[in-house]
C-alpha cells in the first residue's frame, strides 16, 4: 500500500508539473508531423504510375520502422529526464527527510517511485508507438507483423534506462546521474553500430565489442529485437530500414538478460538507498 502511495504521488507529480501534458502534447505534434509527411509521400506515390506496389511497401516499412526508431530514442531521453532528479534532488532539498521518517521502509520509497515511472513510461510507449503504427496503417495500408511484443520491448527499453537513472540517483547528484545515464546509453548506442557494421564485414572483434556494450547496457539490443519483432524482413536487408537495418538479431537470452538486468539493478537501488545516510 505504501508503495502504491509513493507511485501515485510520482504520477501525480508528473501530471501536476505538466510533464505528462507536455509529453503528450509534443508527442501528438510528433505524430502529426509524421502523419503529414507520410500522407504527402503516399499522395505522390499514388499519383505516380512508375511506383510499384512493392516499392510502396518498402517505403511504408522504412517510414514506420524509422518512426518507431525515433520514438524509441525519444522514449529513452524522456525516461532519463523524468527520473534523473527524482531521488537525488529530494535528498538535496531534504524533501525526502519527512517521508523516510514515516512508517515506511526506504526500499518501498524507491520501489514506489520506480513503479510510478514504469507505469508512465509504459503508457507513453503505448501511446506513441501505437499512434505511429495506427497512422502508418491508416495511410499506407501497411500492417506490421506483430505489434504487442515490439511495443512491450520499447517500454522495457524506457524502463531499463529509467532504472539506471533511479539507481544512480540513490548515490549521485542529479547532474552526475544524468551524465552517467546518458553516457551509458551512448556506450550501448555506439557498441550496437560497431556490432552492426562489424557483422556486415564479419569482423569478430567488432561484433564482440557490440555484445560487450549490450551487456553493459542492453538498451540497443532490446530495440533491435523490437524492430525485428515489428518487421522480420528488415533483418540484414538495408532496403527496408537503411542505416538502422539490423544485421544480427539479438537472442532471446539477451532479452532475458535485459529483464534480469532491470530486476538486479532495481534490487541494488533498493539496497543502496536503504544503506545511505541522508
Amino acid at each position, binding site marked *: 500500500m505504501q508503495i502504491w502511495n509513493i507511485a501515485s504521488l510520482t504520477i501525480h507529480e508528473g501530471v501536476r508539473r505538466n510533464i505528462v501534458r507536455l509529453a503528450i502534447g509534443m508527442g501528438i505534434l510528433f505524430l502529426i508531423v509524421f502523419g503529414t509527411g507520410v500522407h504527402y509521400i503516399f499522395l505522390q506515390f499514388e499519383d505516380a504510375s512508375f511506383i510499384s506496389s512493392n516499392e510502396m511497401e518498402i517505403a511504408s516499412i522504412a517510414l514506420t520502422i524509422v518512426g518507431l526508431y525515433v520514438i524509441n530514442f525519444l522514449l529513452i531521453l524522456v525516461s532519463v529526464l523524468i527520473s534523473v532528479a527524482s531521488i537525488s534532488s529530494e535528498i538535496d532539498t531534504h524533501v525526502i527527510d519527512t517521508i523516510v521518517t514515516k*512508517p515506511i521502509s526506504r526500499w518501498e520509497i524507491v520501489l514506489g517511485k520506480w513503479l510510478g515511472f514504469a507505469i508512465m513510461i509504459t503508457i507513453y510507449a503505448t501511446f506513441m508507438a501505437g499512434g505511429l503504427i495506427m497512422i502508418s496503417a491508416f495511410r499506407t495500408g501497411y500492417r506490421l507483423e506483430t505489434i504487442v511484443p515490439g511495443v512491450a520491448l520499447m517500454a522495457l527499453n524506457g524502463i531499463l534506462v529509467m532504472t539506471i537513472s533511479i539507481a544512480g540517483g540513490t548515490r549521485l547528484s542529479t547532474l552526475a546521474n544524468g551524465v552517467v545515464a546518458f553516457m551509458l546509453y551512448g556506450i550501448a548506442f555506439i557498441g550496437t553500430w560497431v556490432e552492426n557494421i562489424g557483422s556486415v564485414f564479419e569482423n569478430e572483434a567488432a561484433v564482440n565489442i557490440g555484445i560487450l556494450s549490450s551487456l553493459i547496457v542492453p538498451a540497443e539490443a532490446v530495440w533491435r529485437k523490437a524492430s525485428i519483432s515489428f518487421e522480420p524482413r528488415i533483418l540484414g536487408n538495408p532496403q527496408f530500414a537503411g542505416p538502422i537495418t539490423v544485421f544480427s538479431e539479438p537472442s532471446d537470452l539477451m532479452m532475458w538478460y535485459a529483464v534480469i538486468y532491470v530486476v538486479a539493478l532495481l534490487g541494488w537501488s533498493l539496497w543502496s538507498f536503504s544503506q545511505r545516510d541522508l
Partner: protein
Amino acid sequence: MTAIETKQLRKEYGTKTAVDDLTLEVEPGEVFGFLGPNGAGKTTSIKMLLNLVTPTSGNGRLLGQPLGDNEIRGKIGYLPEHFRFHTWLKAWEFLDFHGKMFRMEKSQRQDVIPKLLDLVGLKESTYAKLGTFSKGMTQRIGLAQALMNDPKLVFLDEPTSGLDPLGRKLVRDIIDGLRNEGTAVFLNSHLLSEIEQTCDRVAFIRSGVVLETNSMATLNQERLRVVLRVAKPSAELANDLASLGDYISADVDAPFNCETGQIIFHVDCEENIGSVARHLVENGHSIYELKPQRITLEERFLDVIQGEEE
C-alpha cells in the same frame, strides 16, 4: 518507558567525528531543549535518532523501541531544519499524503487535516499550492505534517526559524498543548529565549558531546545573581559577606568593583536576599542598591560552552 534513551551514540564521517558521545534520556510529556553552537552535532544527533543517518556506534531507543524501528515511526512527528516540501502539492493534498504515509484511514485524515490547518493558522490556504507559501507558512505546514499522527514524540529542529512573533507564540502554544497531552518534544533551536520559555529540561552539547543536562527549574534556582552597591566598599564589608556563607554561594563573579562600589554575588534562593540585606544594615553598611538578576539561558549557555573550551 522513556521517550528517548541513548547511550554513547557516535557518528563519524571519515576522520571527522560529528557526534562523539550522545547519552541522554527524555521522559514522556517532557519538552527537552537541545542547545549547542553551530557544528556542535545537534542536527546529526536528531538524524541518528530518526535513522536518517546510521550511528557508527552506541545504541538508543525511541518510545521503548530500538532506533530504526519502522512501526514506532507511526508515533513520531518530525519537522526538519532544512526542508522543502513538494511545492506542486496543495496544502490539503500535502497533509493527506503525509497522513497516508502514517497509514491513517481516509476518514481519519479528513477529520484531522482541517483541524491542523486551523491550528497552524493556514485554514485560508487549504487549497493553495505550497510553492506559493512564504517561509513562515511553509514552517507552519511543516509543523502540521509533524502532528498529523497525534504523535507521542515530536522532533522539532529550529521550528521557529522564519516565523514572526505571532508564529513563534503559536509554536510555543502548540508545544504547551503537546506537553499537556503527554507528548514528549525534542526541541532544537538557536533561539535560547524560545527554549527558556518552553522547555522543561535542556542539554548543552558541544563537539558532539553532551556537556550538561539540567532542568529549567534547577537552572532558574541556580541563576539568581544579586548586584549589591554600597556607599563605601571595604574589606570589612567583604568579610561580612563572606560570613554569610549559608546564604551566598561561593561562586562570586566579581568580589569587588571599587570604582562603582558594586559587588556581584549569587544566592541560592530569593528569600536569602532579605537575610543578606538585614545583615548588612544591622552591621552599619549603607546599601544603595540590592538588585536580584536572573541570569539568562544565553549567559548560562555561554558559561557552559566557553567554560569547556577553556
